[in-house]
């Protein structure tokens, strides 16, 4: 065979073959590990957070090619974002950045979103002051329309 055929799109294959941010952060500020109920796979994301911003991210994944690529892409995407922004991260961003995933493989990108959120929760648990501030801001935001109407 001279041509090469791939199971996934080029970007997915690239992230599978050359995963970005693979590994652990020894002095992580937040670590999240989640399992996929659907297929039984496991993903772990570690975050370094400074002044409310994600300065570094790493992943480790026990899972299919799409799960590995999703975690690699997710860690790329969230670097530099604030905690609040990251809390609103959606798996759709990973799917889009990867150039799409087969329907049956969407849950692998959800796993990346869940691992990231678990890592953020872990961080917020350790930093109740930040958690309180995040909550305050959220409350302010949901209250905002009322204020506008008043």
């Amino acid at each position, binding site marked *: *065979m001279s041509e090469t055929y791939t*199971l996934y799109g080029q970007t997915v294959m690239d992230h*599978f*073959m050359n*995963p970005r941010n*693979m590994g*652990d952060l020894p002095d992580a500020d937040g670590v999240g*590990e*989640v*399992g*996929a*109920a*659907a*297929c*039984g*796979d*496991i*993903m*772990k994301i570690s975050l370094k957070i400074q002044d409310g911003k994600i300065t570094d991210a790493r992943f*480790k*994944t*026990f*899972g*299919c*090619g799409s*799960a*590995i690529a999703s975690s690699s892409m997710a860690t790329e995407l969230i670097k530099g974002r604030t905690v609040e922004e990251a809390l609103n991260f959606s798996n759709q961003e990973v799917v889009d950045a990867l150039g799409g995933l087969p329907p*049956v493989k969407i*849950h692998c990108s959800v796993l990346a979103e869940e691992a990231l959120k678990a890592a953020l929760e872990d961080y917020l648990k350790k930093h109740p002051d930040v958690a309180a501030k995040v909550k305050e801001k959220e409350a302010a935001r949901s209250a905002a329309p009322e204020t506008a109407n008043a």
Partner: protein
Amino acid sequence: MRRVYLDHLSATPLLPEAFEAMKPYFMEAFGNAASLHQYGLRVRDALAKARSQIAALVNAESAEEIFFTSDGTESANLAIKGVAYANQRRGNHLVVSEIEHPAVLNSVEFLEKQGFTCTRVKVDSEGFVNPEDVRAAITDKTILVAVHHVNHDIGTLEPIREIGRICAEKGVPFYVDAEASAGWLPIDVQQMGASLLSFSPHKFYGPKGVGVLYRNKKARLVSILHGGVQEGGRRAGTENVPAIVGAGVAAEVALRELNQRFAHTARLQKKLWEGLKANVPYIKLNGPEPGPRRAPHTLNISTEFIEGEGQLLMCDLNGIAVASGSSCVSKSLKISHVLAAIGLDHALAQGNIIMSLGKDTTDEDIDYVVQTFAKVVVPKLRNMSPMWDEFQRGIIDSVISPTGRGRSFTEHAAAVSGKPAH
């Protein structure tokens, strides 16, 4: 990059001699076997020849006992439904092993919806059916027993003759799916006591698009496809003549080379497993050890702490074609029903791949596979795996060689996901 094809249980390349024999039947000898002129008669002769070539491969008493279908799945459907419908006045109960191919299991499930009942016989941890369990499952309503010769996933060679004897004693037709064994292992329908036996020639260097069903004259069988009276009225539809001709040649060559193929693949299978075992820690063979209780041409292995689709992809990127029974490669996200039936731990089922060898696999191929798997595929994936790291740190334990430290993968997965993995 070296390319090593280790998925012969899915498909094999066509034999050049089969291809040559097929060629005239596309353009020059295009007639329909049902026609009564020169064109039809020539094709009829070709079909008769292929029928005897196939009959010889399985030692059928007569070529009339061989039917051609479109592939192994159709043959299995015809065997199960055709026998069930033909005997429904006698009874409505079937007995199958729980690790049969989906073509068999799903045919049975279809019949169950129409009022037939079925007993699925359990297998042991190596995938063996106990013939006594088959005996115990047979009732006076049983109209068919189905047990495959070799399991398509884990290579288990079932005790067919014993089961055949029990069926003969009880007077129940016995159907053997030989999809994973035909062309690789000797098959003798008379010694096996098989009333029906099926396979696909594309698994042993024949073309795709043709399936074989052997049916002993004494077994009642009705057609499940309705139309003309082709194939003795058992399978309506114009015969795929070129494919049938190719199948005949593939069968003749397989019979001639059977001992050679068997010895060659058995030797390389042993070499492959020993090489992997010696070079990859925490690896397990599923199904029986290489030897007389296992098909010679396939290995099913589980590598701990890494997932099967990742292994398959990483192998493919290194030129090695393999299959996997991991839940991640299945559309239903379920592990292979065979691995579940032998009670394989979920973590090991997730880390599963299947390597099936062929007549052209070489010693150098095996060396390359062992080296690449042990030095590239496994370390790269383990390096990425949180499970491997957690195993090193004593958080989770190995299923293959427990250290007594840490919880199981299943417990761990359930704890981190908040739900038990299936």
